[in-house]
C-alpha cells in the first residue's frame, strides 16, 4: 500500500492528500505492524515451521529466521549472531533474516550476566558464541536426519552447502525438509565444526540491516505506528530530583489535539494526538517545582568535594607490596591529578518508549537493552506480573549504554503515563526532545584521579599509587549487592585495578561519594577514565626516564602477550620510530600511543596529530590494533574500532556536561558539541591473529584514543593535559 494514499480525491498523475484531517483529528494512517514480516510468515504456514530451539526457525518458504537475544544498537549483533547459526547450519546468507527476542530470561539470558537478559559489557557475541553455533548445528543435524530418511541413505552420505541438502543427484532445500526435520529429536550436544571448515566465521558476511538503514525503512521506537497511538511529552524538573509543587495546565489543555495532562512521578506529561501538538502544549504549562527536594550544587562544588576526599586514603581496590614505601625511597617521584567531566551518551535517537496497557497485559515497544530489568520495572509500575509485560524489540538509534538504565527511567516514565491516563488499550508513545535527553542525567560520572609513582636510578618504575574519586554507577541499583565487593564498585576502578604493567608495589584506592546527579555506564564504562590517567601517566614516566614510550611499555608488559600483540602491531603499522612528514610552517606534528584492555579485548592506538601555531590541533590519523580473540566478522571489528575511536575522540575533544544550579548547563548539540565528519581522522585497523574464543568489540575501541591523543600532544608541545576535554589553550 502506498503510505501516502490517505484520502485520494483525484485520480490524476498525483494523488490528492488531506493532511489536515490527520493532524487535526489524529487519524492513524497506514497502520504499521513492526513484526509484520514474521507474522505474515507464520500466518501463511501455520504449524509448518521447524523451530528446533529458541534461536531459529526454518519455514517451508526456506527462510531461516534467527532470533537474536541482544538489541541491535549499531554494534552488529543482528549480523554476528546469525553468522554463528548460519555457519553451523550451512545456510545461505541470503536466506537468513533476523528477529529480536522479547523478554524471556529462561531462554534468552545473557550467559555472562547470571539470569538477566540484556546487552552490555561488549558481551553479545562472546556469551553467544557456542550457544548460537549449537543452535545451528542442532538444526543441521535434524535436516540431515530427515534427508537421510527420505532418500534412504546414511546421514554420512548427506552434504549440506549454502542452504542446499544433497546426496548424489538428490537435492532439497531447508524449506522442503523443514516439516520432516521437525519430527526428529533435538540433539542435546551436536558436534560443532572444526574451525577450518567455517564458511562465515572469521571471514565475514554483509550486515543484515544495511539495506533497511540505507532506505529509511528500519523501524526504531520513534517510528512505531499503532492504532490510536498518542504522543506524550513530559515537563521535567530543571534540577535533578526536584518534585512538582503545583502546576497549571489550563492553557496547555486548550491546545487542539491535547487529550490528557497528567502528573507522574517524574513531572507533568502532556498527551496529544501528535508530537508537535504535545510539545506546543508543554511549552504552555506552568509548573512550579519544589526546590527543597532537588539537587542544588554545581560542577565546581563537586570537584572541590572530590579534591577534599582525594587527600585522604580511600577503600583499597588493589594492594601489591608497599607502594607508598617504594615511592618514598625512589630516586625520582612524579605526581599528577586528573579531572574528568560528566558525559552525556547523546545517542542520535533521543530516549523514547511506546506502552500499551490493558487490564491484564502491558506491551512495550522499545530498542530494549535490558529486557528483564525493564520488564520487572514496568510490571511494578502498572501492577502486573512481569510475565504479563510483553516487550517488542526494535532497532535502537544508538545507546552507548543509555538504554540499559538501571532504574529503567524512561521506560518507567512511559508506563507511568499509560497508567495515569487510565485509558486502557490506548498506546502512548513517550518522546523525549533532545533537551529532555541531555538534561535527564544518567551521565558517565565525573571523576578525579591522583597518580603517584617513583622511578629508580635506572629509570624503572618503583611504586605506583592510584587514587580514584567519583560516583559509583552501581550504588542504589539492583546490581549493587552482587557486584560491589568490600566497598569497591569494580566499574569505578576497572582498567586501574587491573593495570597490566609489571610493578611490584602497586596500590589503587577509591572514594565513591554520593552526589545527586544520576549516573550510569557509558560506552567502555570505567575505562573511559582509567585508560586516560594510566596511559598518560605511564607516558609521562617514560619521558621522565628518557625512554621510548613503546619500549618502556613493552618491558613492563613482558608477561602480557595480548597487550604486547597489539602494542607491537600498532607500532609497526604506524611506522613508530620513523620521522613523520613535516607539517606546514608553524605546525608541529607528533605521534602518541596508548594500549588498554577492556572487556577482555586489548587495543592499541597510535595517533598522529598536527598542532597549529594558534595551539589548536587536529588528529590526522589513527592506527589501531585489536586483539579480540577470533574475529568472527572482521569487517565489523574494523567498523567498531572506527566508531569507538570517533566516539572516544568526540568526548576527548568536546565532551562535558557541566552541572549548574543542580541541573545540566547543556541542552543540545550547540553546547554539547560532538565530533563531525570534518574532524574525523583517517583510521587504519589491524586485527591481531588469534584462535582464542572471541571477545567483544563494541566498547574496547573507545578507551585508548583520548590518552593516545594527549600523548601525541605532549610529544608535540611538551604540555601534559590532565583536564578533559583536551585543550592546549587553557
Amino acid at each position, binding site marked *: 500500500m502506498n*503510505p*501516502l*494514499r490517505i484520502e485520494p480525491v483525484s485520480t490524476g498523475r*498525483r*494523488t*490528492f*492528500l*488531506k*493532511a489536515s*484531517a*490527520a*493532524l487535526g483529528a489524529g487519524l492513524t*494512517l*497506514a497502520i*504499521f505492524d513492526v513484526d509484520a514480516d514474521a507474522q505474515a510468515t507464520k500466518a501463511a504456514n501455520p504449524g509448518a515451521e521447524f523451530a528446533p530451539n529458541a534461536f531459529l526457525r526454518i519455514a517451508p518458504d526456506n527462510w531461516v529466521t534467527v532470533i537474536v537475544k541482544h538489541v*541491535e*544498537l549499531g554494534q*552488529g549483533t543482528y549480523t554476528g549472531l546469525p553468522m554463528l547459526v548460519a555457519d553451523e547450519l550451512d545456510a545461505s546468507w541470503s536466506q537468513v533474516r533476523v528477529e529480536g527476542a522479547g523478554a524471556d530470561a529462561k531462554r534468552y539470558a545473557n550467559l555472562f550476566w547470571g539470569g538477566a537478559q540484556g546487552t552490555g559489557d561488549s558481551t553479545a557475541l562472546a556469551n553467544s558464541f557456542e550457544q548460537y553455533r549449537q543452535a545451528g548445528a542442532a538444526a543441521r543435524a535434524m535436516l540431515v536426519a530427515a534427508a537421510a530418511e527420505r532418500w534412504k541413505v546414511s546421514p554420512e552420505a548427506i552434504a549440506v552447502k549454502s542452504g542446499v541438502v544433497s546426496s548424489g543427484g538428490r537435492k532439497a532445500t531447508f524449506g522442503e525438509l523443514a516439516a520432516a526435520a521437525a519430527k526428529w529429536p533435538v540433539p542435546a550436544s551436536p558436534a560443532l565444526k572444526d574451525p577450518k571448515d567455517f564458511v562465515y566465521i572469521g571471514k565475514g558476511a*554483509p550486515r543484515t540491516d*544495511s539495506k*533497511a*538503514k*540505507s*532506505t*529509511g525503512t*528500519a*523501524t*526504531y521506537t*520513534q517510528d512505531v505506528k499503532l492504532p490510536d497511538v498518542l*504522543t506524550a511529552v513530559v515537563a521535567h524538573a530543571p534540577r535533578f530530583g526536584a518534585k512538582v509543587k503545583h502546576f497549571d495546565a489550563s492553557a496547555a489543555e486548550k491546545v*487542539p489535539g491535547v487529550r490528557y495532562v497528567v502528573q507522574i512521578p517524574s513531572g507533568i506529561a502532556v498527551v496529544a494526538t*501528535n*508530537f*508537535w501538538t504535545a510539545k*506546543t502544549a508543554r511549552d504552555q504549562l506552568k509548573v512550579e517545582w519544589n526546590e527543597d527536594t532537588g539537587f542544588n550544587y554545581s560542577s565546581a562544588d563537586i570537584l572541590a568535594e572530590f579534591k577534599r576526599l582525594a587527600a585522604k586514603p580511600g577503600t583499597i581496590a588493589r594492594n601489591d607490596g608497599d607502594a607508598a614505601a617504594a615511592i618514598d625511597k625512589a630516586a625520582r617521584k612524579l605526581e599528577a591529578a586528573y579531572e574528568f567531566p560528566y558525559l552525556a551518551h547523546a*545517542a*542520535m*535517537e533521543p530516549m523514547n518508549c511506546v506502552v500499551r496497557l490493558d487490564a491484564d497485559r502491558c506491551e512495550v515497544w522499545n530498542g530494549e537493552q535490558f529486557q528483564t530489568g525493564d520488564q520487572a520495572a514496568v510490571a511494578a509500575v502498572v501492577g502486573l506480573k512481569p510475565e504479563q509485560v510483553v516487550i517488542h524489540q526494535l*532497532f*535502537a*538509534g*544508538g545507546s*552507548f549504554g543509555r538504554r540499559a538504565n538501571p532504574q529503567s527511567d524512561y521506560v518507567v516514565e512511559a508506563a507511568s503515563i499509560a497508567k495515569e491516563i487510565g485509558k486502557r488499550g490506548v498506546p502512548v508513545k513517550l*518522546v523525549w*526532545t*533532545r533537551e529532555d535527553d541531555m538534561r535527564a542525567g544518567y551521565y558517565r560520572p565525573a571523576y578525579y584521579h591522583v597518580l603517584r609513582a617513583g622511578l629508580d636510578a635506572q629509570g624503572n618504575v618503583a611504586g605506583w599509587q592510584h587514587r580514584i574519586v567519583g560516583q559509583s554507577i552501581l550504588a542504589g541499583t539492583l546490581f549493587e549487592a552482587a557486584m560491589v565487593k568490600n566497598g569497591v564498585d569494580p566499574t569505578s576502578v576497572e582498567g586501574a585495578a587491573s593495570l597490566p604493567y609489571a610493578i611490584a608495589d602497586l596500590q589503587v584506592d577509591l572514594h565513591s561519594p554520593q552526589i545527586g546527579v544520576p549516573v550510569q555506564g557509558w560506552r567502555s564504562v570505567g575505562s573511559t577514565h582509567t585508560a586516560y590517567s594510566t596511559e598518560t601517566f605511564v607516558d609521562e614516566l617514560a619521558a621522565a626516564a628518557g625512554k621510548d614510550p613503546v619500549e618502556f611499555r613493552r618491558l613492563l608488559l613482558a608477561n602480557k602477550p595480548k597487550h604486547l600483540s597489539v602494542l607491537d602491531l600498532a607500532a609497526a603499522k604506524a611506522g613508530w620510530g620513523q620521522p613523520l612528514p613535516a607539517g606546514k610552517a608553524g605546525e608541529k606534528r607528533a605521534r602518541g600511543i596508548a594500549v588498554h584492555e577492556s572487556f577482555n579485548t586489548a587495543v592499541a592506538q597510535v595517533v598522529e596529530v598536527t598542532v597549529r601555531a594558534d595551539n589548536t590541533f587536529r588528529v590526522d590519523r589513527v592506527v589501531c590494533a585489536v586483539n579480540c580473540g577470533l574475529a568472527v566478522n572482521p569487517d565489523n571489528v574494523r*567498523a567498531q574500532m572506527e*566508531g569507538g*575511536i*570517533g*566516539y572516544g575522540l*568526540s568526548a576527548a575533544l568536546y565532551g562535558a556536561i557541566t552541572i549548574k544550579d543542580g541541573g545540566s548547563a547543556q541542552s*543540545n*548539540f*550547540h553546547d554539547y558539541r*560532538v565530533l*563531525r*565528519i*570534518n574532524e*574525523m581522522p583517517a583510521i587504519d585497523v589491524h586485527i591481531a591473529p588469534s584462535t582464542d574464543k572471541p571477545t567483544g568489540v563494541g566498547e574496547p575501541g573507545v578507551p585508548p584514543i583520548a590518552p593516545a591523543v594527549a600523548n601525541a600532544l605532549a610529544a608535540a608541545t611538551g604540555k601534559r593535559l590532565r583536564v578533559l576535554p583536551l585543550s592546549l589553550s587553557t
Partner: protein
Amino acid sequence: MAIFYVNQERVDVGKSVPADTPLLWILRDSLNLTGAKYGCGMALCGACTVHIDGQPARSCQTPLSSVKQGAEVTTIEGLATKEGKALQAAWQALDVPQCGYCQSGQIMSAAALLARNKHPTDADIDEAMAGNICRCATYVRIRAAIKEAGKRLSA
C-alpha cells in the same frame, strides 16, 4: 491552504494545522513517512534532512509557513535520483550504517552533493556533510561511500 508535493504526491494542508508545525512532523506524524528522523529539533544534527526543490533542507526547522506553494519535497522514501540510488548501493556495499538512525539524513545530504558534484574532494565532502552528525562515527565509511557512489555514476 498550503499545497505542496511529497515524493511526487500532492499534499494539501488545511488551515487547522498550525503554521509553525515543522515539516518533519507533517512527514512523520501525518504522512507516516518516518525515514526522516528527529534528532535535535534545531537543525544541528541533520537527521531530518529532506530535499525541497532539490536542495537539502532540515525539515525540523522548516515550518509549514515557509514551504512554498507547489514545492517538491523528497524524503528518503522517495529518493529516486541516480545519485540517490548509487549512494544507497554504496552504503550497502561498504556496510556504512551502524545504529542507522542518522543515515537517511546522511544519504539525503550526500545525494544533493553528488547531484552537483560527481567527484567531490575531501574538502567538498566536509563542507556538504559537516551538518550531519553520526554518533556511531561512521564518518570514515560515509566518506568512502560517497566517493564510491561518485565512481559508480561515472563508470
